[in-house]
């Protein structure tokens, strides 16, 4: 048995495909490639795949991670990549593939934070976005309710900054949010804390930050 870790981008048209449905998308791509999936035991055997950090519906990502377990010893990561490339659906672009030890912790447990880029469809009046961001970072806690549970969003926001572009009104933000188990920030929650409708912007996850990279950032 082999464990393969794939890092990939999830883009249109898969942007509206849920975390659960992505599981099926991967299964089918792997089956089309005739790669030997391994299955769980039990009445309804499930292929062994493990995706890190669910991406909310409508958010694209340039940095996703999935681990797959394959029943083979001979294939190299590169060979697997070459076979898989031909059967991937539009919207998945693999940028790294590595064989990792079978006992490696699940990818979810390695991620500590995630970065996002937010593009507003309509720019706010001049200086308005800057003002709201400044106000947001100045407070000590932002109490919000999600799924009937109260939580503090503020400590989950590790960083927030404005992206300035020449000759363009300010309409883009960069965010770094905590992404630890039980302490995961959502970009749409930050938007609404800024008084913006989460459906008025395009959100992209640009990077997952792993524990081992933490020293770098």
């Amino acid at each position, binding site marked *: 048995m082999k464990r393969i870790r794939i890092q990939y981008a999830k883009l249109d048209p898969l942007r509206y495909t849920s975390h659960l449905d992505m599981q*099926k998308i991967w299964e089918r791509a792997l*089956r089309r490639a005739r790669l030997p999936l391994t299955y769980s035991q039990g009445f309804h055997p499930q292929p062994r795949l493990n995706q890190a950090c669910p991406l909310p519906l409508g958010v694209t990502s340039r940095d996703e991670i999935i681990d797959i377990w394959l029943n083979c010893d001979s294939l190299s990561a590169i060979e697997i990549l070459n076979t898989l490339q031909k059967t991937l659906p539009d919207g998945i672009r693999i940028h790294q593939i590595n064989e990792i030890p079978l006992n490696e912790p699940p990818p979810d447990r390695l991620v500590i934070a995630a970065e996002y880029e937010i593009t507003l469809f309509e720019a706010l009046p001049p200086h308005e976005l800057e003002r709201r961001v400044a106000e947001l970072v100045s407070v000590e806690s932002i109490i919000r309710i999600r799924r009937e549970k109260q939580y503090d969003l503020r400590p989950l926001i590790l960083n927030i900054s404005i992206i300035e572009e020449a000759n363009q009104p300010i309409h883009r933000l960069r965010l770094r949010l905590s992404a630890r188990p039980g302490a995961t920030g959502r970009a749409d929650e930050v938007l609404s804390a800024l008084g913006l409708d989460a459906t008025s912007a395009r959100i992209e996850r640009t990077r997952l930050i792993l524990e081992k990279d933490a020293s770098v950032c």
Partner: protein
Amino acid sequence: MLSANEIQTRLERVLLKVQKPGRYVGGEYNQIIKTWESVKTRVALVFPDIYDLGLPNLGLAILYDELNRRPDVLAERAYAPWLDMETMMRQHGIPLYSLESKHALADFDIVGFSLPYENLYTNTLNLLDLAQIPLFSSERDEAHPLIIAGGHATYNPEPMAVFIDAFVIGEGEEVIHEVVNAYQSWKSNGGARIDLLIALSHVSGVYVPSLYEPDYHENGTIAHIRKLNDTAPLPVRKRIMGKLPEPTWRFLVPNIDVVHDRVAIEIMRGCTRGCRFCHAGIVTRPVRERPPEQIIAAIRNALEYTGYEEVALLSLSSSDYSHILELVNRISNELADYPNLSISLPSLRIETVSLDILEKLRDSKSGGFTLAPEAATDRMRNIINKPISTEQLLETTNAIYRRGWTTIKLYFMIGHPSETLEDVRAIADVCKTVLAQGRKSIGRRATLHVGISTFVPKAHTPFQWAACDTPEIIESKQRLLKRELSGPNLKLNWTDPQETLMEAWLSRGDRRMGKVIFEAWKRGAKFDAWHDQFNFAAWQEAFQFCNLNPDFYTHRPRALNEVFPWDHISTGVRKSYLLQEYQNSQQGLLREDCRSQCYACGILPEFNQLRRQNPGNYWKCPEVASLTVE
């Protein structure tokens, strides 16, 4: 009309505000996108219900494949947006668009609707409206797309006649190309719209309703159907394939959950059983089978092409497929390299051999075993021509429980002609016996699901003369069943009597019904197939407004010599044969499977040339003597 880019931009702003936005973006694996300008003709294929139901539709998958294999044509898809999305589209001025390239439907050359059932009619109007295309055929000109429709409901095209330019009656694989060809030569000659319609009427299997007009008697029945153009055919005969083409295996794989997430392979067309209520059994005659090797090759191709592990083998009566045992054996041997393959085989006969078949297919037994006895007394079984004894039913159900299935699903139909409460009580009795025996064999795990549909007399069947039960009678029958069939491990399903009524008046409707459909739609009727959306009041008001009586269509027994609104559409089965069968039913006379003996239903003389071109066992009708060549 908005450009594809403008539509795309507006979409991005609304998609996050609706449920399941993945329905509205396309991008499925195996979808085909061609450059818009690179082809001569652009066809939009529309299923007038939501994506989740439309994507798995086999008929449209076949046409999509047929058309896209032509280099000079592109075919794209559209489905009905759910209510939330429709509101958004109307608010933001987004017209109905194709999922592939996001072009407005109005920018296509041809828009084809799939109409398998009558309860999609108001949705069809709604989609035309959402596409900003005039609803009535008479209001469209050369600048609008040609609107065509096909599917089982269109064997009685009259209720939708004022909205559709041309109906394709019967099997579409060949005729769709001829429609496109006729369109292309019309376009290059630059004629008027009427020239296109006349040209289309010359394509065998195409019905252009505007070239015909019905005359009515004072009592509202039809006197005759008149041609308005000398060259139009009368009757219009359905189109069939002499030889079934290789089954489609180039399926789209959706990016979200849909109802039948699987490969569907049709193993044969037609049915020789002759159940008298069954519309499909008549309109799909003759029986033509696909060879097992072709089916297996298609399954293999589809599995490789899609990555699915689930396959449904479709037909009206799987047990009647001549090579069924060979097929299941070969599937389990030759596809052994797919260890998790799951094959479903619906419509099995009520006999223990069916269990052997499913066991060979490694059926998981968790999904339950489905049987359709339809009736529970011998009298009713003779009337509907589905002879299956209670003993045989019980022997089969008993074996099903004993051999490891814990759930059985039984389908019955109430409301058959001359059915009494006693016949209905017998349904309850037999269900109780089935479950009691199951309890004896496997204890409290034994579960029974009973589905009770309500009979609707359909055009082109032996029961086309029959009256439909009134809602009061239907309700009393359903009450009896609900009272008798309750308890642990017993689940009962039935159809809303008002929805049955709608199906009844639309199935045997005439051309005047078009106005009723229009008025009902104007009053908010849409998604009629959805129990929680069905708007009976809108339909009642529409009938009133049009000064028509729904009972005329539903509860009126027809005179034996009545001209029906669909008489000028020929399925190949003669009306006199249907009448004989109706009379046989009234006398309780059975007619056996016509595989053992041909009853001359009319199919052979109508299609004798095709039969001659396709000799041998491949058709289940007897061979026609070949022409002697001098």
